[in-house]
């Protein structure tokens, strides 16, 4: 178990280094930031000075080396646009994104698993069918369009909810969170719902598929042959079996939710890292882009790692190895 964890850790670090290189290469090729930050009428001398000041005149590999050294110390450059440390900018915006992603995930799980279970166990019923139909619609709706429609209905038409920005925050363990204030909730509701919709549908479908397959398994029949109540058969035997792959999916989807928050943040002007990224791409603010990518990559690697370990803990077959065999 420990050896496994260690091996995964090593692999993760390798991926991180590789990704940092790829990211650096990719971003290095985007446009010329000097053009953006320098007065268009500046002459060559001015440009040269700006270039040197931003360190853009050094050869590629040297830039990468400087970058790596800085990265190891936590310094990922300064934003060309805001002239503050890029990493600091990311960290400042991160809580907003994490809050949004987290609330969205909670909504998706709290609704998705029960609904999916009902749809899987009673597939021919009216309720089951409507849940399935609903999930297909939810799955097909383009996230950004749903955001628009939500704004259309709740902000423009009904005027109930604000259409952009984040509400008042309260510090939780030193991190500003907005879900504890009423104003915060009113700002959080639509974006979180928007972000949750796709994952919700996905979870319903997954749970349903898992439940349908599980119910056909022999161990369900055997459990019923023991005279167990339907509640126990479903609640313990079936649920425990389908939860294992679902937990894995939830863990992996968390990363995806954080990425998709980019779109939701753009629509609702939610001040998180996603909006920061889009703005940075448009403004060619390279250090911020690099910092974002690396932070996200690290986050994903950590999430994947945790999910791997979690999976091996949950599934006794993986945790305890193969058949003991001894008679």
């Amino acid at each position: 178990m420990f050896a496994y964890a260690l091996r995964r850790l090593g692999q993760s670090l390798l991926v991180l280094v590789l990704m940092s290189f790829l990211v650096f290469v990719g971003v290095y090729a985007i446009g010329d930031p000097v053009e953006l930050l320098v007065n268009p009428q500046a002459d060559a001398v001015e440009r040269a000075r700006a270039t040197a000041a931003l360190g853009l005149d050094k050869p590629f590999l040297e830039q990468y080396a400087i970058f790596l050294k800085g990265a190891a110390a936590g310094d990922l450059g300064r934003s060309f646009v805001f002239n503050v440390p890029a990493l600091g900018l990311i960290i400042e915006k991160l809580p907003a994104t994490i809050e949004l992603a987290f609330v969205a995930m909670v909504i998706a799980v709290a609704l998705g698993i029960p609904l999916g279970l009902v749809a899987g166990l009673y597939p021919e019923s009216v309720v089951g069918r409507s849940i399935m139909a609903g999930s297909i619609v939810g799955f097909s709706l383009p996230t950004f369009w749903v955001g628009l429609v939500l704004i259309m209905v709740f902000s423009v038409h009904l005027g109930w909810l604000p259409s952009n920005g984040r509400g008042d925050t309260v510090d939780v363990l030193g991190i500003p969170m907005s879900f504890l204030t009423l104003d915060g909730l009113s700002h959080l509701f639509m974006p979180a719902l928007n972000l949750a919709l796709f994952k919700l549908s996905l979870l319903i479908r997954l749970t349903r598929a898992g439940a349908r397959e599980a119910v056909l398994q022999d161990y369900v029949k055997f459990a019923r042959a023991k005279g167990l109540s339907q509640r126990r058969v479903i609640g313990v035997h079936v649920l425990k079996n389908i939860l294992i792959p679902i937990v894995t999916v939830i863990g992996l989807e968390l990363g995806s939710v954080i990425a998709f928050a980019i779109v939701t943040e753009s629509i609702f002007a939610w001040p998180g890292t996603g909006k920061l990224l889009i703005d940075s791409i448009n403004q060619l603010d390279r250090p911020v882009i690099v910092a974002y990518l690396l932070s996200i990559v690290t986050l994903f690697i950590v999430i994947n790692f945790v999910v791997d370990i979690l999976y091996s803990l949950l599934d006794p077959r993986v945790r305890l190895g193969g058949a003991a065999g001894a008679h």
Partner: protein
Amino acid sequence: MSAEPLLQVEGLRTHFFTKAGVVKAVDDVSFSVARGKVMGLVGESGSGKSMTGYSIVGLVDSPGRIVGGRILFDGVDLATLDPVAWRAIRGKRIAMIFQDPMMTLNPVLRVDTQIVEAVLAHAGVSRESALARAREALVRVGIASPDERLRAYPHQFSGGMRQRVAIAIALVNQPDLIIADEPTTALDVTIQGQILFEMQKICAESRTALIWITHDLSVVAGLADTVCVMYAGRVVETGRVSEVLGQPLHPYTRGLIDSVPSRNRRGEPLRQIPGMTPSLLGMGEGCAFRERCAAASAACASSPDVAELARGRFVRCFHPVGEPMAAASP
């Protein structure tokens, strides 16, 4: 010992209503099992033997359901029971063992959980006492160091061990009847022998009746008191083991016995029943076996009923092979 049989199945019919048509998986099946006795239910795949077992415990899944007949268990017709009442009997008075223990034991739950829940479903005892009974049950089926085994997961056991656990679960509530659906088919031959022997011993000790469903005649020969042969969803022959195996009356039974390799003489071509098992879909009138029967005649185009040719000896055939002997000593 009462003269009433423990289980009396009369005219049981279980049909499956599929999109392609009606499949008569169990079609007019009748037999009886006395307390403490062993009956072998023999047939090939698709003969309806497993489905008969499921019908008795009420585990027929849609699109199938019991459409006719009676299942008299200790005087009560199970087919008329509501689901809750049937569930009370299932696992407590009638227990079932399935074929593949890897698939029947839940891989993500510990063995003790799976045995204890069987106890707690039928008795409001404490978890400790349920656990004690689980331990006892494991010892009875011959599992050494039960405490260690209780805390393990199914995948950590070998196939034979898992089946013993399944048997322990079946025994833990001291049922009157155990229905075993091909429990040794998935195991090695040597293990098979052990399990057979132990089940026989346990059932004899506790006077538990046993229905052993199998396709393997040799198993039946050593184990059972009576045997019931099924073909295409119908019972074709019933009787005491020694009689049926010693002098089979139905052409199918005869063909089955003859095709066992050990019964053939060396150097002669292996005997087999010509043709193939008919599809159960849309089976019409007439004897199901007539396409493959050497003795078939025009009369066989109408379905034969079960005839009691001697006491306890039933055959469904217009042309049984010979006459039954006078009751021979078992």
